[in-house]
């Protein structure tokens, strides 16, 4: 389902250059905050001799009275068990944390990175054995293993760095492997392989640069884990006795009576250091992740209230219309970008038993328009103007609860590409039964399975497949199950968003026949979103042609086929084979529909229009009625011909 527009892709490409990366990273508040925290600690570590008021060897002249002195002007953070200045030790401790974190992470990243690259790039036996080994190492708890190894060797800083580094590579290997796999199948790498570039050349010049960003994020996380591990080792009593890391300071304070002396400063200050640097690294990692993997979540449950300008003049103007859409405009609103005008001033009426075809290329706002009718757009997609009347009720003004009673019972939807439209962990039958339970609470429970079976059989799915999960269905079956589900509550209107695109021709014909017969039998109204003008000609009563979010032309089906006024409709028809004129040459429309966040100034079709003149590039055409008022087109040519 294409409910979002394609503007997020730009972030991705920007991030591939270093400058572009920095540009987008700067916008991430989390990342910048983390970066400044880390910078602070690094400054502390580098300039320790200048910042620390006392030298680390100042233990020599201490007396008993100096031990565990509370914070004072001469000792900001008090003194420790050896009478040393806690603040000075704290400042020097930053050096050890950074050293351990950095060097251990280098070891981990080198091992994990090369394992992941090798496994991902070469595949086969390499991959199997490396990944099996990684899985085994991943399961073995690393802190106990680190403790065992450090306890059996000498607890020097170097040993600690090596052991932490040697045991901390597993997640990196997994992450790098999957990234390598993704990168490997990119076109330019396949091309480099095809022209015979050596494997090492490809790995170092093509794959590595693309894996690098992931390695950096992973590196940041590994550093923070290494710092935490070092402090834990020191606390357990396995720290390097010749250095005074933050963990070591806590170990001494805890083991040497700070608790009973009430020396809270000796117990808290070093801990704040660890929390500060680890928190900073975590934020930095999150910021980097946001830039490298910008996620566009479409969170469907965020409260959405249409931001409609309520205009009194909009009333249901056709009393026999079951669904009347008037002047509807939908914008995708984001904090950082200009609003994308996905749909503007679209109006149409749908009568009982009528079949409306909604036609246009991909990205013309068809799906957005359909989702907006039932207010199903993600939070960014807002109805900014217009009304939707269903049986005289304005759907844009209803509360969520009132709307829920109309959804599916009054108007149901068959979604485009039903691959993910069914919940993977519930059986298909169960998901159909759910709608009956919801909307027809009086329906006898014991009859529901029979009803579900009947619905599925209607679309050619046998009873024994009722209790299967969606992944056991083929793509076409899922699509048909969706149609069965849409019919479950006998709705008045079905919105079918390209319901037959994934199906083979036979099934396609069956489905269309089914919809058509239901329409005739039950008076079902259908909005049919499609690219297929053949289906439109065969089934539809009326046609709405959309281009770039606006109505290009709206008329009954005969008028559209025999007397199209809008050049876009004309071009669309030329691109479609006509059986009555088999020798006619087919032509396609060069170019693409405009991006909805970057629309042309004048008519949206002007850049591709064969008949465009000056005015088309500067002024957006209004909707003009042609002849009787049931034929509408938005084109300056129509106005000129009147």
């Amino acid at each position, binding site marked *: 389902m294409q409910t979002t527009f394609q503007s997020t892709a730009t972030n991705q490409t920007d991030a591939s250059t270093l400058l572009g990366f920095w540009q987008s990273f700067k916008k991430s508040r989390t990342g910048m905050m983390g970066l400044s925290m880390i910078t602070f600690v690094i400054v502390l570590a580098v300039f320790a001799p200048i910042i620390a008021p006392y030298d680390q060897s100042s233990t020599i002249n201490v007396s008993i009275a100096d031990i565990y002195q509370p914070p004072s002007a001469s000792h900001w953070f008090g003194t420790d068990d050896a009478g040393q200045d806690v603040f000075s030790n704290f400042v020097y401790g930053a050096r050890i944390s950074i050293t351990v974190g950095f060097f251990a992470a280098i070891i981990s990243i080198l091992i994990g990175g090369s394992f992941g690259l090798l496994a991902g790039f070469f595949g086969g036996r390499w991959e199997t054995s490396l990944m099996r080994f990684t899985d085994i190492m991943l*399961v073995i*708890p690393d802190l106990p293993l680190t403790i065992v190894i450090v306890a*059996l060797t000498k607890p020097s800083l170097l040993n600690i760095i090596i052991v932490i580094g040697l045991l901390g590579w597993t997640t990196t290997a997994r992450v790098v492997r999957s990234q390598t796999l993704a990168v490997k199948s990119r076109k330019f790498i396949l091309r480099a392989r095809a022209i015979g570039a050596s494997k090492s050349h490809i790995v170092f010049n093509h794959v590595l640069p693309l894996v690098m960003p992931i390695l950096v994020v992973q590196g940041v996380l590994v550093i923070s884990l290494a710092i935490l591990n070092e402090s834990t080792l020191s606390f357990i009593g396995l720290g390097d006795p010749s250095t005074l890391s933050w963990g070591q300071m806590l170990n001494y304070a805890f083991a040497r009576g700070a*608790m009973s002396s009430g020396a809270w400063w000796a117990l808290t200050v070093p801990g704040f250091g660890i929390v500060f640097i680890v928190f900073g690294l975590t934020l930095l990692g999150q910021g980097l992740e946001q830039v490298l993997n910008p996620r566009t979540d479409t969170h469907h449950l965020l409260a959405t209230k249409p931001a409609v300008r309520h205009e009194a003049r909009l009333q249901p103007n056709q009393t026999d219309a079951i669904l009347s859409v008037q002047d509807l405009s939908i914008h995708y609103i984001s904090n950082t970008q200009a609003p994308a005008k996905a749909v503007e001033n679209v109006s149409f009426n749908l009568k009982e038993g009528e079949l409306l075809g909604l036609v246009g290329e991909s990205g013309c706002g068809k799906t957005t328009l359909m989702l907006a009718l039932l207010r199903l757009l993600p939070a960014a997609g807002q109805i900014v103007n217009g009304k939707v009347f269903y049986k005289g009720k304005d759907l844009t003004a209803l509360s969520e609860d009132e709307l829920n009673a109309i959804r599916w019972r009054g108007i149901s939807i068959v*979604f485009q590409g039903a691959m993910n439209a069914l919940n993977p962990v519930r059986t298909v039958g169960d998901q159909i039964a759910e709608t009956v339970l919801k909307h027809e609470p009086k329906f006898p429970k014991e009859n529901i399975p029979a009803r579900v079976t009947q619905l599925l059989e209607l679309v050619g799915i046998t009873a024994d497949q009722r209790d299967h999960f969606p*992944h056991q269905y083929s793509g076409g079956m899922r699509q048909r199950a969706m149609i069965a589900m849409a019919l479950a509550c006998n709705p008045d209107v079905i919105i079918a968003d390209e319901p037959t695109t994934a199906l083979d021709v036979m099934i396609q014909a069956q489905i269309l026949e089914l919809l058509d017969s239901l329409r005739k039998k039950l008076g079902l109204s259908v909005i049919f979103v499609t690219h297929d003008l053949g289906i439109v000609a065969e089934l539809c009563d009326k046609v709405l042609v959309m281009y770039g979010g606006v109505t290009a032309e709206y008329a009954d089906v005969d008028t559209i086929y025999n007397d199209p006024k809008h050049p876009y409709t004309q071009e669309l028809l030329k691109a479609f084979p006509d059986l009555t004129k088999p020798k006619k040459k087919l032509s396609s429309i060069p170019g693409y529909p405009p991006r909805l966040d970057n629309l042309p100034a004048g008519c949206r079709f002007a850049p591709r229009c064969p008949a465009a003149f000056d005015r088309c590039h500067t002024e957006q055409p209004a909707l003009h009625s042609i002849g009787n008022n049931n034929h509408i087109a938005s084109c300056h040519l129509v106005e000129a011909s009147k």
Partner: protein
Amino acid sequence: MNRSRAILNKIAWAIFTILFVIVLNFFLFRILPGDPARAGMKDPRLKQEAIEALQVRFGLDKPVINCFDSLNPIKIGNCNVNPLETQFFIYVGNLLKGDFGISYDTNRPVSEMLSERLWNTILLIGLGQILSIFLGMALGIWGAWKARTWIDYGTSTLSLIFWSLPTFWLGIVLLFWGSANGFPIGGKITPGMSSFPLLQQWGDVIWHMFLPTLTYTLIFMGEYTLIMRSSLVDVLSEDYILTAKAKGLSAFQILKDHALQNAMLPMVTVIALNLGFTVAGAIQIESVFSWPGLGSAVFEAVERRDYPVLQGVFILIAVAVILANLLADLTYSYLDPRVQVE
């Protein structure tokens, strides 16, 4: 691959991993320097008989394994040994019998020392995990539900901070605060309580457990909150949630009937992957609060250089984590119907 074959495959891998850990554990303690039993035997003051007696006591009189010289691992040792008479096979045989050797420090069998402590650790970890999983999930669901509001930002920031806390340090801070507010400063039960009625004893144990459990819960809650939140936000962006919404289900029904089970899947994986960290947390918390479990056994064994205990705890912890991981794996395939036909 059908379901039962997949399960058998997983079990086989778990067994293989356990074997790997046993081999690793054995050789780590033989190859790396620092074992006082061997170091002590080089003491020039010891008489030859004393050295031999010690060697027999710790089983060091037998060759480590075929063709392996424990004193000089680079040299090829004696290859004409009955494999079953080597230290390695004796060690494995003993392990299977539940014999973990004898503590250098207390001279008691390690298995006896550890079995007392195992249950204490399970009690602490179990309670802490249950609390942190429930609280973390609740906070994560709340954050995802109120995404992009101050509730979401608040819970996420708090979780990140808890995630960044060194476990032992949070323990120290809470202990410092608790000891000033009448909480016991450590142990499992007040000395002398064993003569009191059982109910009162239990009350005392719960009182002692309060601070360690609180530490444990806070530390792990943060990560679970973050995972649950992002997993649920991902699920709520899925197409089938849109379908559920179009069906007219209320937001609560969507969450309960469509989102949660799917969002739980990554949670199960993370809980499984976290089992290693769980143990790391137990080592630190038990050390701070002197809770008599396996974790504090590690702490004490390191302090006293009591290697048989360290070796025994490591194998016990590793096997427990591997088995728990297997359990999580099997739970996952139960929760996600797609796994069956992979």
